[in-house]
């Protein structure tokens, strides 16, 4: 197979998105197996300073253009298409996020290339490159091959640890000329920052859920601490809401909201079906309960039998310690 492995380095508001690092980790493995270089494609306006964070790639191809200041999928797809045609990579890995969603599909359509969505893994196989895709809301995994190169792979969060995609190494940076069509049909007017009101738990990636095991409203602060450490929000099962300890907008379950976060930490929640109905599709569920036979352990991926009030502070401390260690690494 000829051509390099590419990772689209998605940047937004001056930052590289986390899934980009996941894609870089994945791309590095693929490039290694194919014995070709890994290249990160960094497009935008005034983005050169970000190239240094992409050391996992052998080379960063950086393209500056004022028209790329905001990530309009159609414009980015056109700019990428020109580069792909010119340099013929063997695979393009694109993070699937709200920021650039649709860009990969447009790129593939524009060049009549195969596009594979929802990839959790992409590896070299006898028949070319094979992807493992998560379909039907996680109920089915498909192994998929693409006919023709380069194939465009949409990388789903959780493919690799983003840590594995970071490197202190300085990549070589090659500035490339990008062409962007004169198309202003989609124009960003402004960003609207989140309001200071209550959080929308259906849109959180991490939720720390408390049940009756939290025992008193004073203990909610412990859950808030953990949520803050994980970058998420606190929600609850009905008994806690009924007590008036948290507003209705935080209730998960039959009577409340249905949530599908990437991480759901269930603390002192027995797992009554009314509650489980609202959270069973969470990607990763960690449950702490004093009852070893609590039904929550039937839906959780990981379980801890113990006193919530003991485990909670220990968990927050462990996470803080780990974050501290990494920020100094």
């Amino acid at each position, binding site marked *: 197979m000829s051509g390099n492995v590419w990772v689209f380095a998605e940047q937004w508001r001056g930052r590289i998105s986390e899934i980009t690092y996941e894609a870089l980790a994945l791309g590095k493995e693929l490039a290694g197996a194919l014995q070709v270089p890994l290249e990160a494609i960094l497009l935008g306006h005034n983005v050169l300073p970000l190239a240094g964070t992409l050391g996992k790639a052998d080379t960063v191809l950086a393209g500056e253009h004022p028209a790329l200041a905001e990530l309009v999928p159609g414009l980015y797809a056109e700019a990428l298409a020109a580069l792909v045609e010119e340099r013929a990579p063997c695979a393009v890995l694109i993070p699937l996020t709200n920021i650039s969603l*649709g860009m990969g599909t447009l790129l593939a359509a524009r060049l009549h290339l195969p596009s594979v969505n929802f990839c959790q893994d992409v590896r070299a196989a006898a028949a070319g490159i094979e992807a493992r895709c998560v379909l039907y809301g996680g109920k089915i995994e498909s192994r998929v091959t693409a006919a023709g190169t380069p194939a465009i792979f949409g990388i789903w969060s959780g493919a690799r640890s983003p840590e594995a995609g970071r490197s202190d190494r300085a990549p070589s940076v090659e500035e490339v000329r990008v062409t962007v069509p004169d198309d202003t049909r*989609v124009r960003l007017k402004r960003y609207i920052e989140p309001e200071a009101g209550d959080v929308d738990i259906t849109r959180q990636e991490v939720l720390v859920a408390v049940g009756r095991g939290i025992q008193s409203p004073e203990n909610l602060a412990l859950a808030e601490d953990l949520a803050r450490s994980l970058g998420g929000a606190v929600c609850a099962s009905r008994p806690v809401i009924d007590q008036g300890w948290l507003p209705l907008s935080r209730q998960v379950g039959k009577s409340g909201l249905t949530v599908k976060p990437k991480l759901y930490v269930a603390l002192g929640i027995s797992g009554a079906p009314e509650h489980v109905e609202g959270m069973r599709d969470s990607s990763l569920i960690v449950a702490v309960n004093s009852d070893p036979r609590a039904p929550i352990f*039937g839906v959780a991926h990981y*379980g*801890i039998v113990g006193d919530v009030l003991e*485990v909670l502070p220990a968990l927050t401390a*462990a*996470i803080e310690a780990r974050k501290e260690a990494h920020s100094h690494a």
Partner: protein
Amino acid sequence: MNILVLLRMVPDVVEELEIAPGGKALDADLLRMMLSESDGHALEEALLLKERYGGVVTVLALDAPEVDDALFTALAKGADRAVKISDAGENPTTLEAAYTFAGWIAGQPDLAYADVILTGVQAIDDLDGLLAPLVAHQMRLPYLGIVTRLAVDVPGRVATAIKEYPGGVRGEFDVDLPAVFGIQAAEKPPRYVPVAKVRAAMKSRQIESVPAPTLAEAGPSLVNVVAMEKPQPAEWAAMLEGSPEQVSGKVCEILAGTGLL
């Protein structure tokens, strides 16, 4: 204003999915199909636009099991016209669906200038791409996805769209019409329509059944499924044991391993 909503039926994942002999597809005999969740939001947003600005809402779907129920429900909710494209092939890929939708729209003089084309932001079986950008590409129209709100300047032919970003940030875009939008969520949850109204629509309304367009561009699929499998469900959580400090350390490792830390 002409509002067109593209609807797709997807497997209902509440019911157990089974893999067909051969291991490359779902067992169609055991599948129940339902309207893709975000397509339901696209329909709701279309009905809200109609209520606000007037116009005609046309829902367009490919023939599939239970699609008539979805289309009659759309009519009962307030759609003006329901069109079903027959013989578009069994289990079309998203790319094939996009070609069929775009090909059919192009052949309709009255719909060729649809001002707003809405569909769900993504479906659970979008293996080879997303519908909204594919249709936009085919029709040479602008595309914006993850949209949660639309306002339209009808005479000015511009839509103001709210797109969601991570962390609760939203972006406000102006998009020249006609355009294709991938709807993440309507401004309010899809409305409830009493079953009696759906039953009445089944008696009094018509679904227009039209043949699939002849497509010049559809070639062999570029994406091949080698194998499908069900991830083994964890019957019971993997239990972590030890002191609070020990189990916390183990949780940290798990979170780091899945990229959550």
